[in-house]
């Protein structure tokens, strides 16, 4: 039994138009995606804007309707009505630490919201629990009567985490959790996420466009392009042995932190771009979409047409 299994997931959004505003087409935000996650590990979902990575995360927590396919969490179908209670095992950390906390609520009410929905505690117990959670994320317990705007971006993100772990979830969807933060604060939040992962045995689905951070955080990685997977595998598979031209191009585009490699990087990037332009049709179908994934090793899958695999 897989910890989390996404099977042939499709999420389509209708495009309305024409004279009567009828559905004339659909944006295939997620188009037939399958992957599995291991418990206690961090799975990185990478792609550029519009690749569908966020939509997958939102589909798993139930914020986007699934068009087709299934999501199994510890063997149970998430869409099934009788499995509603497992929703509390899956929580989410949002990208924007400013808009993800209700500005009109005190921290106490923010962090207690999930507790109030799923557990019936007395006021006192609830307060105690929130205070424990605040200390857990490294904020002072006295701060629970403050409003979100009294905290810095990094602190707000910690409050978001406190809220997400309030119900002792098993899986946390982290949607670009640090991309709105300054570099130094990013480091704070990333370190801290790793700490609580160990302590609480959490599994992360880490959604990001920043390959550097994904490389730092993740064990498994899936690369997406236009709603489909182009490659997936262990971190080493992706970074030392990228097979799909899109992955290669993406990795080549990451700026190198060492100025001595500048010329090498530049040439490398140009070569990859040339290769990308030349071999585009080998890697993408007529609509410019990726093919289905094929195993090239036990852990490593690449989206290639059948003929490419020997």
């Amino acid at each position, binding site marked *: 039994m897989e910890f989390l299994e996404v099977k042939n997931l499709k999420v389509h959004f209708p495009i309305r138009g024409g004279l009567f505003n009828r559905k004339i087409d659909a944006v295939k935000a997620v188009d037939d995606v399958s992957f599995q996650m291991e418990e206690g590990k961090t799975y990185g979902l990478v792609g550029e804007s519009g690749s569908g990575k966020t939509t997958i995360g939102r589909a798993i*927590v*139930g*914020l986007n309707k699934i068009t087709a396919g299934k999501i199994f969490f510890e063997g149970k179908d998430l869409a099934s009505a009788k499995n509603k209670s497992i*929703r*509390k095992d*899956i*929580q*989410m950390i*949002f*990208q*924007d630490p400013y*808009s*993800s*906390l*209700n*500005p*009109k*609520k005190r921290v106490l009410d923010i962090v207690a*919201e*999930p507790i109030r*929905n*799923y557990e019936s505690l007395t006021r006192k117990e609830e307060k105690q629990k929130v205070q424990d959670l605040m*200390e857990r994320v*490294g*904020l*002072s317990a*006295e*701060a629970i009567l*403050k*409003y979100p*705007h*009294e*905290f*810095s971006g990094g*602190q707000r993100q910690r409050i*978001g985490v406190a*809220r997400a772990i309030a119900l002792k979830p098993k899986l946390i969807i982290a949607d670009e959790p640090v991309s709105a933060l300054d570099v130094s604060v990013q480091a704070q939040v990333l370190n801290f996420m790793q700490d609580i992962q160990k302590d609480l045995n959490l599994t992360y689905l880490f959604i990001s466009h920043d390959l550097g951070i994904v490389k730092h955080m993740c064990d498994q990685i899936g690369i997406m392009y236009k709603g489909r997977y182009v490659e997936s595998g262990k971190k080493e598979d992706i970074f030392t042995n990228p097979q799909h031209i899109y992955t290669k191009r993406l990795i080549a585009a990451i700026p190198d932190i060492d100025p001595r490699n500048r010329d090498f990087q530049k040439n490398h990037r140009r070569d990859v771009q040339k290769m990308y332009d030349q071999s585009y049709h080998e890697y993408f179908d007529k609509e410019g979409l990726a093919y289905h994934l094929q195993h090239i090793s036990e852990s490593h899958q690449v989206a290639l047409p059948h003929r490419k695999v020997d």
Partner: protein
Amino acid sequence: MDSKHAYVEETQEQMRSVKSPSGISIMWRELVRDKVALFSLIFLILITTFVYGISLFLSQEEIVTVDLFAIHEPPSSEYWLGTDYGGRDIFGQLIIGTRNSLSIGILVTLMTGLIGIIYGLVSGYYGGTIDNMLMRIVDFFMILPFLMVIIVFVAIVPKYTILSFSLIMTAFLWMGIARLIRSKALQERELDYAQASRTLGSSHLKIMFTQVLPNLSSLIIVTMTLNLAANIGLESGLSFLGFGFPESTPSLGTLLGYARNPQTLEFRWWVWVPAAVLIFILMLSVRNVGEALKRATDARQRRG
């Protein structure tokens, strides 16, 4: 130095740096800072207490009783502001009229507010098809020549009372606030905090009223204040035309209605000028307060 300590210190540092209080207190601060608005507010409080207080000792029936021996008397020590064509005391009518105008203004504002807030919130929060349908209805109501429609309904409703009058007004005045609330709710629901609530197991109803609604509070307060001014104006306008309060219930508009007679307009200023001035000052004060609140909610226009 341990980590917890460091973070506490950090929080205190932040406390000092971003001392931006919540919406309502910003509004209050702005109101107090704005001398004109503060003065308006004090004036409104005074006049409201005065009018409601005095009218406890005045009998509406006595005041509206025709006294044929005192028709069109100019101001005197007996009749401070003279009398009208029925010999009724203008000053008394002014007090009762102000009370009635204020009451109906507040009542209509509250009723339209209640309908508009719920309607707009539902429409904006759900969005999509529901929103589309609900907004088509609003669009239709918006383009009705509502003043005429209200007059027609006032004219044809058989048992015409203050309640039915305010219901008719409400029926054609709730759309503006509904629209406003809807467009703000549409923005709010996209924000991560509303989305987060979904993932935390809160129901739509709960999110709408406990998460989104508090974020609309400043908008609601501002809009309702400005609406109050508009409603006082509209009621007096309808009464002026003869389609507001029945004549046995004087309103500020009723007094102005006497000025439809050119003789009164030209030669008997004491009948209508005090009412005109009072409506103007009332609306101006309410709007001053409303505009100050509006400035408070718009950070860019905030003074200082």
